[in-house]
């Protein structure tokens, strides 16, 4: 066991909303060639068939006021260029503008789906990606929307769902596939889901809210860090809406869901990181994963790979794609994922599909799989998907980086 793994007492996951890898981190490839981002020549055809290239002109808000489609049929268009389902069809990642043009945008505005951020515009995420570990191959668990993808982070499955509909986990399913929080509790460990505040609440509403002990607010997270009471496993949800705060204040959404202000989310990531970074005992003993739930309809150039099925199927009526029954045997579109710990060397890039000989494919089942491996060894619950998922704690090494090698985020 490495010194880093030996020192590890806390895993913290911050899951943001709806941005693709290329959109947020693709611009890093220019100065960091191992990062599988954009070379500037990637393109998609628009409605007139004109090829539109990617552009580093993404704005913090305003370009995506029409929410890009990220439901199952829309993502199918994005991945397969609009070719309907047929055996042997090839993914080409050519349907992003075509899909966005169906969302009420003008032909010109639909090109915004190809925009990405230059790294200096979102310094917190891009700094963490280059200072610690970035994954070239972390994908959404399903080519679909938020709720089913987040379910994979909590359960290692979405119980057959590919949409936003509410699903109730039956007692039989719960006994077979308990959430990671229930597993931790049963195993005598602590786990908490920190949502931002009550007006923002949680996206894991119906099943976990039955047990109050799993939930707390972000203020409590900050307090638990300070008091030394952070659980072994913490999952943080950002603020999902602009809403009034205490004492007449105004709280900005920090989830980065289009069209929320991207900088509010970047600074929120910085706040979470700083809180851990600034408490010496916590910094030494914590691994922080920042990951996005799905790509939100935004362009990424990497074809999603196949994966171990989770034992469920979604019928044609559920997928909304004529002829397609989904067997949960391929992943969704690539998302940003960054692992932070003082026990990782600077600038590690975990290879993805661009390096078939060394690739490691991650998806949200990797979260419960990693937590289970670290804290619940011998626990055999979980789907085949989760049991076969890559875990990320082997990335922690033997050497702890000095304070002068680990950044802190400030405000001008």
């Amino acid at each position, binding site marked *: 066991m490495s010194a880093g793994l030996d020192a590890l007492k806390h895993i913290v996951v911050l899951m943001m909303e709806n941005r693709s890898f290329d959109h947020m981190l693709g611009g890093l490839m220019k100065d960091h060639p191992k990062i599988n981002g954009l070379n500037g020549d990637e393109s998609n055809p628009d409605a007139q068939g004109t090829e539109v290239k990617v552009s580093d002109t993404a704005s913090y808000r305003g370009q995506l006021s029409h929410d890009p489609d990220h439901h199952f049929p829309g993502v199918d268009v994005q991945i397969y260029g609009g070719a309907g389902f047929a055996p042997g069809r090839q993914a080409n990642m050519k349907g992003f503008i075509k899909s966005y043009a169906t969302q009420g945008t003008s032909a010109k505005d639909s090109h915004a789906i190809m925009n990405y951020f230059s790294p200096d515009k979102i310094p917190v995420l891009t700094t963490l990606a280059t200072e610690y570990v970035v994954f070239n191959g972390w994908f959404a668990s399903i080519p679909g929307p938020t709720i089913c993808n987040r379910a994979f982070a909590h359960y290692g499955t979405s119980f057959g769902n590919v949409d936003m509909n509410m699903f109730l986990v039956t007692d039989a399913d719960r006994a077979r596939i308990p959430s990671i929080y229930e597993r931790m509790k049963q195993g005598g460990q602590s786990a908490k889901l920190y949502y931002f505040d009550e007006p923002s609440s949680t996206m894991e509403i119906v099943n976990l809210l039955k047990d109050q002990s799993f939930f707390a607010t972000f203020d409590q997270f900050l307090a638990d860090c300070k008091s030394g009471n952070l659980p072994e496993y913490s999952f943080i949800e950002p603020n999902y809406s602009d809403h009034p705060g205490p004492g007449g204040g105004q709280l900005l959404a920090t989830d980065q869901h289009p069209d929320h202000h991207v900088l509010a989310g970047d600074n929120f990531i*910085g706040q979470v990181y700083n809180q851990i970074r600034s408490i010496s005992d916590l910094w030494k003993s914590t691994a922080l994963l920042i990951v996005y739930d799905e790509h939100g309809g935004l362009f990424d150039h990497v074809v999603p790979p196949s994966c171990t099925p989770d034992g469920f199927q979604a019928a044609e009526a559920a997928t909304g794609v004529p002829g397609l029954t989904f067997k949960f045997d391929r992943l969704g579109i690539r998302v940003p994922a960054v692992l932070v710990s003082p026990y990782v060397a600077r600038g590690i890039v975990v290879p993805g599909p661009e390096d078939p000989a060394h690739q490691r494919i991650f998806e949200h089942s990797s979260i419960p799989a990693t937590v289970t491996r670290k804290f619940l060894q011998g626990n055999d619950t979980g789907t085949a998907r989760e049991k076969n998922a890559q875990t990320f704690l082997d990335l922690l090494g033997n050497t702890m980086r000095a304070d002068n090698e680990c950044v802190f985020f400030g405000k001008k």
Partner: protein
Amino acid sequence: MALKDAPIINMVNFDEKEAYNHDRPISSLIRTQLLHLHTAENLWLPPEDRTNININELHTEKQASEYIQRVTALLHRHGRRQQKATSRAKAHRPTKSAKARKKAASAPRKRASKNKSSGKKRGSRR
């Protein structure tokens, strides 16, 4: 070594007041959250605790967040009450082994049947 040695990277400042817009129409994500909470309200809360708010009339992030806050608080309160009730019930439950419980469960029945028959006898004697 201390935090003061850490290289400082500045976050980007922006006009938060200008960015704030609680009248923004809600996204499909928040619409989904409203639907889920509305269903949870009807599934778990007793009728007298429900908000009776028509979520179809909620259009902005501010309106949605007010409803979400109210229902989240209600669900937590209800959950805490249920947990207390469950703990109380557990506390009053005798802590016997399964075998002892089985034995104890069968024994009173025998006594009851004897009493019943003896009662009848008593009754008949009267």
